[in-house]
């Protein structure tokens, strides 16, 4: 079956900086596809080239097997990472404005219901909380009843409760068989929402596939964490531990053997925790550093 979107050998520079470095992947219809990575990974550039906001230096994007053209804009809804709207308009007026920019649009009542906008529909669009604003922007992205929904870090900056609420809204949209392309640097978000992911760093794809399959591929067993201060001397392990936030993270295939080694070394077991590996652990394994460290180290907007 022809994929809905095919990205082939995409390259994009900003001056001398190579933001996207020869990446290729496909997005199948009806799935939630995640582009993951820290700030500066190239997620936003990739998604904005896919949205036709920027032109690629080389490579191509195919929509249903054909090069994208002006009509593509009628098929997609976009929620940008950073955006502003015309001032002094209510949420309703803003939605009406955008509905009139498309050939066809969804009834306003449906958008209000899907994005839970009923309480704020007559409020000035500049006077919304972070979560309300993101839901309104999602409503704008949904207004044309698009086949593909691009969401660029939609929950960045939201408190945990607002993030969870936003995820619920996305889940409801997924039930409509929309294709969602999501960028995020929250691994738990991707794990919760996405059927397929691509992990990017420095413009390149490090890994791609279904989250569960990727975790299975990279981690046979659990992740054992223990305080660094409890470890004196080297450990005889068949994997390389990673240091993170004062803890040593051991992600070996044979969990029993790892624990035996810790006991042999006389390491106190009361400080140890055994966790199921997640995408954050996968990112650590792929890049050698945690996503938080990369995020804090680079800072700034994603390219």
């Amino acid at each position, binding site marked *: 079956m022809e994929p809905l979107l095919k990205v082939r050998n995409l390259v994009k520079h900003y001056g001398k900086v190579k933001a996207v470095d020869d990446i290729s992947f496909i997005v199948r219809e009806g799935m939630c596809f995640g582009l993951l990575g820290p700030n500066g990974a190239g997620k936003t550039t990739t998604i904005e080239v896919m949205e036709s906001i920027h032109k690629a230096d080389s490579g191509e994007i195919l929509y249903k097997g054909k090069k994208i053209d002006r009509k593509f804009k009628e098929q997609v809804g*976009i929620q*940008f990472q950073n955006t502003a709207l015309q*001032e002094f308009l209510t949420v309703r007026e803003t939605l009406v404005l*955008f509905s*009139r*920019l498309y050939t066809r649009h969804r009834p306003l009542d449906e958008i209000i219901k899907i994005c839970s906008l009923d309480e704020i529909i007559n409020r000035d669009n500049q006077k919304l909380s972070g979560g309300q604003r993101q839901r309104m922007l999602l409503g704008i992205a949904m207004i044309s009843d698009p086949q593909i929904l691009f969401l660029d870090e939609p929950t960045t900056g939201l408190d945990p409760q607002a993030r969870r609420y936003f995820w619920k809204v996305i889940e409801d949209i997924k039930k409509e068989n929309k294709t969602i392309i999501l960028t995020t640097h929250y691994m738990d978000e991707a794990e919760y929402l996405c059927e397929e992911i691509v992990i990017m760093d420095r413009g390149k794809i490090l890994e791609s596939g279904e989250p569960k399959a990727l975790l299975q591929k990279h981690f046979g067993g659990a992740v054992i964490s223990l305080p660094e201060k409890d470890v004196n001397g080297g450990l005889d392990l068949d994997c390389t531990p990673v240091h993170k936030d004062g803890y040593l993270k051991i992600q070996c295939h044979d969990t029993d053997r790892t624990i035996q080694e810790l006991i042999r070394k006389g390491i106190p077991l009361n400080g140890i925790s055994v966790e199921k590996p997640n995408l954050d652990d996968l990112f650590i394994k792929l890049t050698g550093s945690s996503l938080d460290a990369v995020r804090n180290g680079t800072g700034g907007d994603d390219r």
Partner: protein
Amino acid sequence: MKRFFAIFMARNLEFIRDKATFIWTLLLPAFLIFGFAFAFSGTNNAVYKIGTVGEKPAGKAFLSYRHLQFISYPSGEEALNKLKHHQVDMVLDFDAGNYYINNDDTNGYIAEKLLASDLDLKLKRKTVTGTVIRYIDWFVPGVIGMNIMFSCLMGVGFVIVRYRKNGVLKRFKATPLRSIEFITAQLISRFLIVIFTSIVIYTGTNIFLHFEMSGSYTDLFLVTSLAILCHISLGLLFSTRFKSEEVAGGIINIVIWPMMFLSGIFFSLEGTPPAMQVASRLFPITHFIEAARKIMLDGAGLSGVTVSILVLTAATIIFLVASAVLFKWE
């Protein structure tokens, strides 16, 4: 058209609901008009202004009286025009052997008595009629021009740069909206806003100050409309590329301030250095103010302001085409 109207209506709502900007747009020009009307309401009669045409004869006592100011004009027509509008009190045309006074001007009566006291100066008496032109009558076209200049350059140029900077344009770019639809909506919206504010300012202040209007309101409306389109197009040109409000604001100010002082808004350019007069011709606003004054004060028709209309039309076309070519969403 649906997309054009969507952007057009949104921009209108944005302007009307931005109360501070809306009120300031109306109040600033009104304040200026009333302020200048008050400041220049007194008449200084200490000096009588006498227009002269042709070479002044030597040894005539009247021509050396104190408190008389003699202003030489190249043609009788120009001098009489000034007399009709009370801008001089009497005209001595030595070429024709006539002197002229305005029957409606009390200063002319005194000046005539002084002339009669010089028995050597024999000139035939002629009269003209015409109402007085106050400074405020002369100033009003300048204020309308200034309002057009600020509203169009700042209201279009600055606003679109702000849209670009904060991502509004990028959001629109992601929709099927075409740049020409966006630009046209901005142009028409701003046109209606400025024409509306110009009419309100003129009508509102006219109730109290009763401006001179010798020409046709239709002609004034047409010339004003053309000037608004021209300055909106210039504002669009400034907004095509800049992403920083500071840079755009600085560049717009570089253009606005010379236009303020070199286009004849506050004072006549007659008698200024030739270089300044040439520079003033480069600004579209000079051509509007000149045309508006001719219509309002001299009663000129459109044929009398053809040059100004042609300059404004050509400038509008050039600015619009350049804006359409250079415009970038981001």
